[in-house]
């Protein structure tokens, strides 16, 4: 079941002081996120990720297109009762303490009394702010504010959580904790829509991703599928080779690297791969392994951005 349905969502901003002209920051985005998955929304800075999230939160009004969350239009306040949102580089009232901020946010959901106090206590502990729960936010580091941001997004036990760059500003330990929190949400059946450009984190936790560049959707699907389509050849490892066989293999290979008893080869396309394999079997060499050379998400990302 689709929990988030985005259809032809487009947003133009007017720029310029005197003669304003429209600049398209999001172009015809169509996307579906299914219940219970962690969906990674990727793209370089300025790709339109935050704009999409703000459109979903109705902080921005779309130029055209529509978005539905949990079957309700994006602007429906009753639907907002069931979702959570962490803005990019969040900032909260610095005169409040985490406990006060979370209690305030809870009241906006109609919560109150001892159950809200318990919820607040649990959340500050969950995000690792237990010891600073009564310290004013003006004394907080960026990472601590980020953790509090995650806590406030979870105050209402949401069914869908939108996290805009939740790992930014966090040290490696903090990032690991966020990953733990996010995977914990999935275990509870919560759908997570996570925008990020920190790719290893996305690779580690996301079920499916969409890649956005310059306001346009480039690709959507599982990481496996996206990267498999971009296999950049195969690496073969042989043993029992001789200098003579090495020279015979060389024409099919873009890379030939003897390493002790083993010979590492790289065949760039299927034709060459088959030729190498036929040779190996015909000459009785021992095949140790054949591995597809898949780009990492990082490499794919680079080619995408540079290519555009």
């Amino acid at each position, binding site marked *: 079941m689709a929990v988030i349905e985005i259809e032809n969502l487009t947003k133009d901003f007017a720029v310029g002081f005197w003669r304003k002209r429209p600049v398209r920051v999001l172009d015809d985005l169509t996307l579906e996120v299914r219940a219970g998955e962690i969906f990674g929304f990727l793209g370089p800075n300025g790709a339109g990720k935050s704009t999409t999230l703000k459109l979903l939160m109705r902080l921005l009004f779309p130029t055209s297109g529509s978005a539905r969350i949990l079957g309700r239009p994006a602007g429906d*306040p009753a639907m907002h009762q069931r*979702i959570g*949102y962490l803005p990019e580089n969040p900032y909260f009232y610095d005169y409040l303490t985490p406990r006060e901020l979370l209690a305030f946010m809870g009241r906006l959901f109609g919560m109150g009394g001892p159950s809200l106090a318990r919820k607040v206590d649990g959340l500050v502990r969950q995000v690792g702010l237990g010891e600073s729960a009564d310290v004013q936010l003006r004394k907080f580091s960026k990472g601590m504010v980020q953790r509090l941001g995650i806590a406030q997004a979870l105050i209402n036990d949401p069914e869908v959580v939108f996290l805009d760059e939740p790992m930014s500003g966090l040290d490696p330990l903090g990032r690991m904790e966020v990953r733990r929190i996010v995977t914990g949400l999935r275990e509870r059946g919560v759908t997570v829509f996570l925008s990020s450009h920190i790719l290893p984190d996305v690779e580690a936790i996301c079920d499916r991703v969409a890649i956005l560049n310059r306001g346009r959707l480039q690709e959507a699907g599982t990481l496996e599928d996206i990267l498999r389509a971009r296999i950049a050849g195969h690496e073969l490892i042989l043993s029992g080779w001789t200098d003579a066989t090495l020279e015979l293999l060389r024409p099919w290979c873009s890379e030939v690297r003897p390493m002790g008893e083993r010979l590492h080869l790289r065949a760039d396309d299927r034709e060459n791969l088959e030729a190498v394999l036929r040779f190996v079997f015909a000459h009785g060499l021992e095949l140790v392994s054949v591995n597809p050379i898949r780009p990492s998400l990082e490499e794919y990302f680079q080619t995408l951005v540079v290519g555009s």
Partner: protein
Amino acid sequence: MNRILAIAQNTFRETVRDKILYNLILFALVMIASSLALGQLTLGNEDKVILDLGLGAISIFGLLIAIFIGIGLVYKELEKRTVYALLAKPVRRHELILGKYLGLLLTLAVNVAVMTVGLALALAYTGRAPAGAYLRLLPAVGLIFLALALATALALLFSTFSTPALSALFTFFIWVIGHFNADLARVGKGSAVGEALGRTLYYVIPNFSNFNLIDGRAVLQTAGYARPIEGWAVAGAGAYAVIYIALLLAIAIVIFSRRDFK
């Protein structure tokens, strides 16, 4: 309603934890205290001087609080992006504006109350004012509060679409012009365009002089000043303020509800 109250309470908490507020109150109280010294320079009119200066101080410092804090509140929400997390909650945009306004009114009410107590103490210090004067102080301060509530609504409206500096200027100018509103109706006499302009401004700009019904003499009701405080005039000023504020808030809500928060 709960959400509006939660936002109002949070706004109040924000202003109470702001140092500017205490500086302003301190200045107002110093000014009221200094009226004691100034009053001694006059002959027999000590209480009137204390009252006029005191009411003036409440009015001016109340205005400064309304401008400095009122304008900052919405602008800061946008500038610091605290509004993002807030509006993603089940909060409608008009609830945010109304909550902010209510919170600000509460701050103003508490401040005006503190300054009024200061003024009453100054009056008690001389010990010559009639007992009824303390009671009559209340409608006088009440009218000032209404004027300040109106100024706050203006400041809030400007801050939904303008920068703090411009909003402060606009609010201050309208406050000043609004005190001489009656003169506007006479502006441009003789030229049809000028007259129409003057008339339009007269009706558009809030008439702050409506709230100057009760001065020091009226509070004291001393000999030679027979005019009683007219209840219907005070009620009329109240109704005027309520209608005007409702209109200003409605415009602020319309503007705020259409805004893109980039």
